[in-house]
């Protein structure tokens, strides 16, 4: 079994004349939390869509837990939990029904649904239709669906949008516990630099479809000679 949870090898994705992702390679180890940051349109979401098998690279390859996504699509997805940036829900299914459906499609034990409902504080609304949920509740439901089935790799695209401060903290602590305790890998795309710095072992900075810089938060600080500045300043220096 490979030590890498995610391996991205020189992937390229073009939309007509626009090269959205241009020869990016990166690796995320088991038990590691890796943050992908970059300005809007830098190519983060496209890269994530290729990692999760939702888009096909024009060149290069992506593997999840040793399974080539292009060749073993379903097998690779068995290792994945994914929170998309844009989440479309069945308006007339309850949150609990939606989670049970996801658990069924992941072929996992439905008992995990209850614990995710508890963790993401959805108990009070679990039997209400998802169409009536606020943005924060929808995000929590999406996160719960990603965590259901205890996947080896969790890919979270903008997980903090709409979350309250308490839930952000709970999520951060859970990510640390699961990566350190259970060897689960996280790949997170976020614009909240404080969260990125506190949760991630390594950070990849994307700029115009390329990986402009990569390293631990300390290495990136050293790279731009900003040892004490907020991480936001480091990001601006690298991403612009």
């Amino acid at each position, binding site marked *: 079994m490979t030590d890498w949870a995610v391996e991205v090898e020189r992937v390229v994705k073009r939309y007509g004349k626009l090269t959205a992702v241009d020869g990016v390679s990166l690796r995320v180890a088991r038990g590691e939390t890796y943050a992908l940051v970059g300005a809007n349109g830098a190519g983060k979401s496209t890269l994530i869509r290729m990692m999760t098998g939702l888009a096909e690279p024009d060149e290069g390859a992506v593997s999840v837990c040793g399974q080539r996504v292009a060749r073993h699509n379903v097998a690779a*997805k068995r290792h994945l939990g994914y929170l998309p940036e844009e989440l479309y829900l069945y308006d007339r299914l309850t949150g609990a029904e939606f989670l049970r459906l996801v658990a069924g499609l992941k072929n996992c034990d439905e008992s995990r649904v209850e614990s995710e409902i508890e963790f993401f504080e959805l108990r009070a609304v679990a039997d209400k239709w998802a169409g009536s949920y606020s943005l924060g509740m929808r995000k929590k439901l999406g996160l719960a669906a990603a965590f259901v089935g205890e996947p080896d790799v969790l890919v979270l695209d903008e997980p903090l949008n709409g979350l309250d401060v308490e839930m952000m903290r709970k999520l951060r602590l859970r990510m640390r516990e699961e990566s350190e305790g259970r060897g689960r890998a996280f790949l997170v795309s976020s614009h909240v630099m404080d969260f990125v710095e506190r949760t991630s072992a390594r950070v990849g900075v994307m700029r115009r479809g390329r990986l402009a810089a990569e390293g631990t938060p300390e290495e990136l600080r050293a790279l731009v000679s900003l040892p004490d500045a907020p991480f936001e300043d480091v990001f601006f220096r690298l991403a612009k």
Partner: protein
Amino acid sequence: MSHLRLIAAAALRERVRWAREHLYLLAVLGPVVVGMTYFGVGRLVREGEWSVTTAWAVAAGVGAAAALVVLGMSRASAEIYHVRRPESFFESLPVETDTHFHVALVSRAARTLPTAFVAVVARTLAGVGPLLDAALVPALLVFVAVVSLAEVASALQWIHWGHARSRSPAAGALAFVVPGLFVCGLLLVVIVSPAKLPEAWRWAALAAGAAWSAAAFLLARGWHARWRRSDMEFARRLGAVAGRDLRGVGVLTRRLNASTAALVARDLRLTLRRFSSAVYVSAGLAALILVALFALLTTGVLPEGEPGAAASWLDATWLAPVAATKVACVLATVALSSLAAPLVAHELSRFWVERAAGAGAADVSRAKLWYARVVSAPAPAAAWAAGALSGEVPAFYVAPLLLENLWLWLLVSTVVGSFAFEIPEQPGLALVLMSCTGLAAGLLVAWLWPVGFFLLPAIPSLVERGAMRARYYLIEGGD
């Protein structure tokens, strides 16, 4: 199989809950529309002394089948690739590619069933047979299979052609789908008017339909498995690139207030960028009507009037070429202006724009009224041009005919546009409602143009009703 069952059960549960919320639509408005059709169109069919030949019946069946398939392509592609749909979440889950295909197919079949039911009702209206007839079941099943598979196969090809632009596979697929449409047209005749076909033809249509369905299933499944991953991103981004823009929107909307003008401009842009395959159907239907008019006028099919029948311009309004031109104007106006129904259905989930911008219900409703007028504006001029160019319309009546056509267009498009918010969740039913009322008003005025003045007082009530329905969707969200 268990994944298919899970996804289908979730979709079914949601539809049932939707139906429970929309009892008014299903228990009141639906029967009203069906009743109007029964007492209007049904009576015409039963009591009319006309009958169509087998060739015309088959041609009408094939035309209806082609319209059904083209109308369903947008929705079929969204169902296959889960574009902006809840099922998009399942793309990241370990669900087999075939399951996505089967889910789309089941969904298409479920949506085609009501159409099959409409065909059975049409058969009953025509007095051909009872509503419940076990002998019809095989033809209905094969009809549903052929239409669903034709929609799915066409949608797969449409997206793949848009992405890959390779002509030979697309031409091959077209050559495969066209016989399917022909078989589907024959099956429609078998269901609605079996006496038009000899016994052997009916069995042949059934056998051909079953064979085509089996071949289409295997082919479409193969295309889906081969292209899904590469075409999915294209389907998701379809329409993300701005297409052609309208020139002169400002001129068209100058008389309107800013809010209504902005909404009309948005609606016209969406139409120009083909928000749904319904745009193709409407435009194609209108073009077909105008071509048919020109053919009627130039081939001497129409009855000739008595010599001196059109001595005055008052009499000329009933001359066969003039009447045909006016009827064509009404039909084309209805075909184009009823695009308001799929447009409102398309916009319903994006209604937050109107809410957030504080657009008033009167503005929202008036925008659809003007949309119906603007989008159907070419109809009176085109019908008039066909009439004038054919040389069959007396020279002294060319100018009055244009005025009559404009009068018809204004009335018909206003009536049709005012129903835009009546049943937006069910564009199919809304189309029937709009067509029935538009045609009834239009044909009456085409017969005697001053009747339009008696209809005018009813227009403000219709417009007010439209504003009331728009207010409901603005405040309640329609849900």
